[in-house]
């Protein structure tokens, strides 16, 4: 079984890798590229812990093949902060104590960022439905939703 050569841009940097045809993008990121911010909570597309964007589209990297990423731009949690400056969502998650264990946090942040790019002023209901694919077992989502709404407001004010 020969491996596939893939060229992508990950968080803005051109990245090449070899992967097996059946290998998921999540496994590539975690095991080949040491980008362990995306987590495997289920491997079946049900928890959102592995969320990344591919060409700006929010996907479960556990359901995407590594080979599919050829020629694509991938953004992961590792690319969310701008140097030492946290993204407003990251900052608001800290301020609102929107994480307890933090295993869901990377996926939820990536998903929330994608929400705010599409819809800068979501209602609470829209935020809840957008994030319905991201499981959090610790928080009951209350502080997560508050953090997202607060970040949205701050980003609107800043823009």
């Amino acid at each position, binding site marked *: 079984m020969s491996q596939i050569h893939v060229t992508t841009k990950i968080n803005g940097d051109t990245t090449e890798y070899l992967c*097996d045809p059946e290998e998921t993008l999540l496994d590539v990121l975690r095991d080949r590229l040491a980008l362990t911010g995306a*987590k495997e909570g289920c491997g*079946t597309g049900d928890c959102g812990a592995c969320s990344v964007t591919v060409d700006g589209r929010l996907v479960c990297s556990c359901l995407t093949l590594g080979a599919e990423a050829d020629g694509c731009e991938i953004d*992961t949690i590792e690319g969310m902060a701008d140097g030492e400056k946290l993204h407003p969502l990251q900052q608001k998650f800290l301020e609102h104590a929107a994480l307890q264990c*933090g295993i869901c946090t990377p996926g939820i942040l990536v998903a929330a960022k994608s929400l705010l790019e599409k819809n800068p002023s979501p209602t609470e209901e829209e*935020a809840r439905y957008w994030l319905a694919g*991201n499981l959090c077992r610790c928080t009951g989502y*209350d502080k997560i939703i508050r953090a997202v709404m607060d970040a949205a407001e701050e980003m609107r004010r800043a823009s």
Partner: protein
Amino acid sequence: MPLDDQTPGQKPGEARQFKVVGTRPLRPDGIDKVTGRARFGADMSAPGMLIGRVLRSPHAHARIRSIDASKAEALEGVKAVVTRADFGAGDDDVADILDNCMAGEKALYDGHAVAAVAATSAAIARKALKLIDVDYETLPHVVDVDAAMKPDAPVLHEGLSDETVPDGVSQNVVHRVEFGHGDVEAGFAKADKVLERSFKTAATHQGYIEPHACLATMGTDGIADLWVCTQGHYMVRNTCAAILGIDQGKLRVTASEIGGGFGGKTTVFLEPVALALSRKANRPVKMTMTREEVLRATGPTSSTSIDVKIGMNKDGKITAASADLRYQGGAYQGSPADMGSMTAFAPYDLENVKTVGWDVVTNRPKAAAYRAPGAPMAAFAVESVVDELAKGFGLDPLDVRLKNAAREGTKSSYGPTFPAIGLEATLQAAKDHPHWKAPLGPNQGRGVACGFWFNFGGDTCVSLNITPDGTVTLSEGNPDIGGSRASMSMMAAEELGIPYDQVRTVIADTGALGQNEVTDGSRVTFAVGLATIKAARNAKKVLCERAAMVWGIDPEAVEWADGCARPAGDNAGKFPPMSLKEIAAIASNTGGPVAGHFEVNAEGAGVSFATHMVDTEVDPETGAVKVVRYTVFQDAGKAVHPAYVEGQFQGGAVQGIGWALNEEYIYGEDGRLQNPGFLDYRIPVASDLPMIDTVILEIPNPGHPYGVRGVGETSIVPPLAAIANSVSEAAGVRMTDLPMSPPKVLAAIQNG
């Protein structure tokens, strides 16, 4: 030198004025967690690492006649295969744990581990598993608790019942417990009404988002290292050492960041297997579970069957109460039937009370602790009957609970007499809250329920070191599962009188501290907090001595206040205060580095109570239930970091919502789990829920210097009952079977 519980200037009996405790600083591990660089169980790797995978039984109950792994061993890339034959007999104490990690004579449930492989890649390991031949003789199985108790039920283990078990029930009944006082029959005879109801609850899983994972390295000399996501790395060390027959001191365990546990990571599953594979291959071995493995082979809670009987007078006074609680704990003994029996009536001051609990084994994965183990199901049953009786008499359910509420001096249903407790405060707060008066819409109902949890203490070690520049590092031995490093830094800062950001708390590995009980029983903020405060006091003693040395006065004449050593009163002499930084800078010249440590088996945890209030709306067409409003009222003793206290309240409530409405282990006729994935085992998602409002009550725990009580577990005790009471009101029919999934609610409505 006054180093007691009071701040300088504080009068005896006056509430302490806190500077740091009670504020909401950012957590020290926060940036790591929002940037993706925090390292969880599966995020570690090692040079030359192999990947381990487990072969699991497809049968609910089967004798293992033989295992032939020769074909797997011959596969290129496979470096080790282990079966039970690779483990010694092990200590008796860990016999069940070993058997659960790797089956011996029998596979006892669908998903039970029977062999494991370490290979150079996950793909090769998976392929190797398919090459292992296991010859099974399938046996009849049983998964339901009531069926398992019948005399003719298939038996999992011969001769397991102990002397508490009466004749006439199956050998699957391991143990029977009884609690209570007074004469329940006499009490029932005095009641205006006696109500008896039976309840069932399905097994649920803790549902932590991070599957179990570890990385083991073990050499032929028996020296071993383990990286693992766990609620207690000291427990992992001791258990693995006992299973593998090595010295505890030779195995160093480091706790990774932990992606949720809720009790499910208070035991071992992969860890001894990974060590055994590593020993055999002489290479590091990483193992992670898939979600399917997590659901099939780890932690669910007990499914239960409970009968409750309560006698009440017209004025709402309970005259007697009894319950029979049957908990299946999966394939091995140890269901939380005992804790269910102890907690069932704990919120009430009862003259006559009796509970009987039954620990039953079935062909299911061994139940692990789940947040207040055993208590939510018991509360569901009891609080449903209290509610029905109250409403039957036309009484306010909160008034009825207040009338019967346990308070300081109450002899609890499980024995001890309560010191100062917060139940009445939560009930009163609930009664005074706008939620209680708010109008309900069509098809809506409002439910309330109370819950209780003991809270634990236990073995705890803390070491507080002062660096030469006067900052503080605090080492503790309990994995931080929801912000406890922040709380420890806050308590150390409070005690030392320095800013929060001057203290960094780390979770030390097992080589660095003495024994620490696992992060369970809501013990950490209480017990580790207590040890932190005492360690800081020990450090302050040394700091005062150093200042006394510099000033040439008696150490007893120095006191510590606001981050500085000061002469205690005018007689001690006039010296400008010496700050922590100043003393740290000269530590080397005044006797050496300054540290404080504290080791204790912490007692005085302080029980905790909560009252929950919930509005639900039932769709009469489909039976679907929507939670529309939820408020938690809980006693925290003293909320060290209120945001994380609220988080515990909210998280517990929502896990309870899942348990009440959706979550259940579904077994087929063949005894195999039908829904081992997050698609079919459905935990609450953001769009299912409203905001979860919280009210923190603070009735200080006399057993903690700052009054802290554990808060993590009590919050899951009331929701099952509160939601059932609410849905029963909305649907107009009493719901007694969890989860209240749409088909069940619809059937209940249609059958009236």
